[in-house]
């Protein structure tokens, strides 16, 4: 693989940034600082990171209810994210959206989405729109294994293949939709196999290995950008937390979780940073400290920000300009 140590290190930092951000979210949620529902990505960081490392800032993604990782990997601002989780006016949506609705259109983030599979048709549209506008950007559509059984998945996969759209579908197979294991609700849990039916390339990849994810995506994104061809990547992964924060997880046993934790994408890459990638321990530590600081300041920003005025609720229904 021809991937530079710099890129690898960047990805390490991104994964860590996601991890630390969410570990803090978990604590803050438990403390009652964050209202509503929160779905954490801890354990799955390699997917968003490896995928988004292949994208330009002008490329697009659609995301899910479990979106923090995608957003951070695509360049989302931690301060505005945290403030949004708090429901503050300085947040991405001015407090109107919360965790499930963060978007940053300036960074090509077409929004987290509270509707399972809701972002998939939108990603098709984004890719179609890029064709209309004659731009050579690509779109990545993130969704879960559970979402892959929704009709939206099918309609979108089929159309992307038919129309030869610059669109990479990325299914994060974390084995469960809430409590339901994928093999309980499908007779072929090798989801990548579905691609062929659409005349699309399907790739299954170890979603705990950021380098493998990167490699698979780089190839898919290149085909998308150069040949305007879609692809379907299925990344096997696992979440270390419950479906939502506060959930009492009853649907896996500890051993299964432990086995996946053995493959923790961050721990694993960390071990290789020095050898073979030649990043010095000192530089790593420095970066790690920077990330801690970055997160702290995001939290302070959120804490210090004002809540919106109640009346703000009535503004912004339409684009007025």
């Amino acid at each position: 693989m021809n991937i530079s140590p710099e890129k690898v290190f960047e990805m390490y930092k991104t994964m860590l940034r996601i991890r630390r951000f969410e570990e803090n979210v978990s604590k803050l949620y438990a403390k009652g600082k964050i209202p509503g529902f929160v779905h954490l990505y801890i354990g799955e960081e390699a997917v968003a990171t490896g995928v988004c490392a292949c994208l330009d800032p002008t490329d697009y993604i659609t995301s899910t209810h479990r979106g923090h990782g995608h957003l951070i990997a695509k360049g989302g601002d931690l301060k505005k994210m945290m403030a949004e989780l708090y429901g503050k006016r300085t947040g991405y949506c001015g407090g109107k959206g919360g965790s499930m609705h963060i978007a940053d259109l300036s960074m090509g983030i077409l929004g987290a989405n509270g509707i399972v599979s809701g972002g998939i048709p939108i990603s098709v549209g984004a890719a179609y729109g890029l064709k209309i506008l004659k731009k050579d950007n690509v779109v990545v559509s993130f969704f879960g294994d559970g979402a892959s059984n929704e009709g939206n998945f099918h309609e979108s996969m089929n159309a992307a293949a038919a129309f030869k759209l610059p669109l990479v579908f990325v299914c994060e197979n974390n084995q469960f939709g809430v409590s339901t294991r994928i093999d309980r609700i499908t007779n072929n849990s090798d989801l990548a196999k579905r691609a062929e039916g659409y005349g699309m390339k399907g790739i299954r990849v170890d979603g705990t290995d950021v380098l493998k994810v990167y490699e698979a995506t780089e190839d898919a994104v290149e085909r998308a950008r150069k040949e305007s061809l879609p692809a379907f990547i299925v990344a096997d992964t696992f979440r270390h937390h419950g479906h939502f924060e506060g959930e009492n997880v009853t649907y896996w046993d500890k051993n299964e979780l432990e086995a996946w934790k053995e493959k923790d994408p961050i721990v694993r890459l960390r071990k290789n940073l020095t050898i073979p990638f030649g990043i010095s321990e000192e530089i790593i530590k420095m970066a790690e400290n920077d990330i801690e600081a970055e997160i702290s300041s995001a939290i302070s920003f959120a804490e210090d920000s004002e809540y919106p005025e109640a009346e703000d609720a009535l503004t912004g229904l339409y684009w007025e300009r």
Partner: protein
Amino acid sequence: MSKKTYMEAIREGIYEEMKKDSRLFMIGEDVGPYGGEMGLSKGLWEAFGDERVRDFPIAESLILGAGLGASLVGARAIAEIPFCDFMGMCMDQLYNQAAKMHYMFGGQAKIPLLIRTPIGGYQGGAEQHSQCLEAWFAHIPGLKVVMPSNAYDAKGLLMTSLKDNNPVMFIEHKKLYQIADEVPDNYYEVPFGKANVIQEGSDVTVIATSYMVYLCKKALTGLEEEGINAELIDPRTLVPFDEECLLESIKKTGRLVIVQEAWRRCSFASEIASVAAEKGFRFLKEPVKIVAAQNVPIPFSPVLENFVLPSPEKIRKAVLDVMRR
């Protein structure tokens, strides 16, 4: 009689009916071992097994269609949609298929299909997890639309729903799930189309649905001392709707306040107001008042959400307004 929460009452009703009738089954997302996204079906899978309490794929159109198809061949289905907000994924199966089949097939189809789904805000669920879409369901001929506001009605209406051979939208409220009431242990029914006059009064009629009934009770507390006798009516079912009870009440009071959590435009509140304007016009002494969600999506931040949704204060103010206080 014993104290049961709204959720327990519904669960108990389902349990009892499933025990009696082996044709009855329940499907939905995570309704099996997990016990449902809300926890409502806890214990049912253990009691009735995997086929009769079945985790379905996240595929709402399939879930509704599956309930419908099964009911057409003689089974009896309960289909759960974990948030009412997701009904947009399966509206076709609801209104073009289930609601119309009996009529459109010339009376051949018997459709014992119960669709359960919770509505409501007040918990930071944000735009896609807080909606109350009962107006859509009530708009379509062929459905029955049930909206219990307390544990007693919840079980009684559930029993009536499960006896019905038509598609019933059974609309629960997330904020009511943990509220307990005295609920009979034995079988009983609460009939459709029969409003509940929760509190009699002669000055103003307040009509409210679901969780709003709960808020109205708070809002009306103490009004009597101020010389205002409010009558509080809970229609319990939107379709069929107890028009007579409404008209009798405004005949007596001459004033009408309608309270709902849903948005106002083309809503059940509009409908009630229109009934008043058409059939109760001569009874009314004052303009009708509607308390409803503001005309924006339900925002996330509690300070915003609370501003958008009805509150006891807003309800009270509306009552005082029509009383010209």
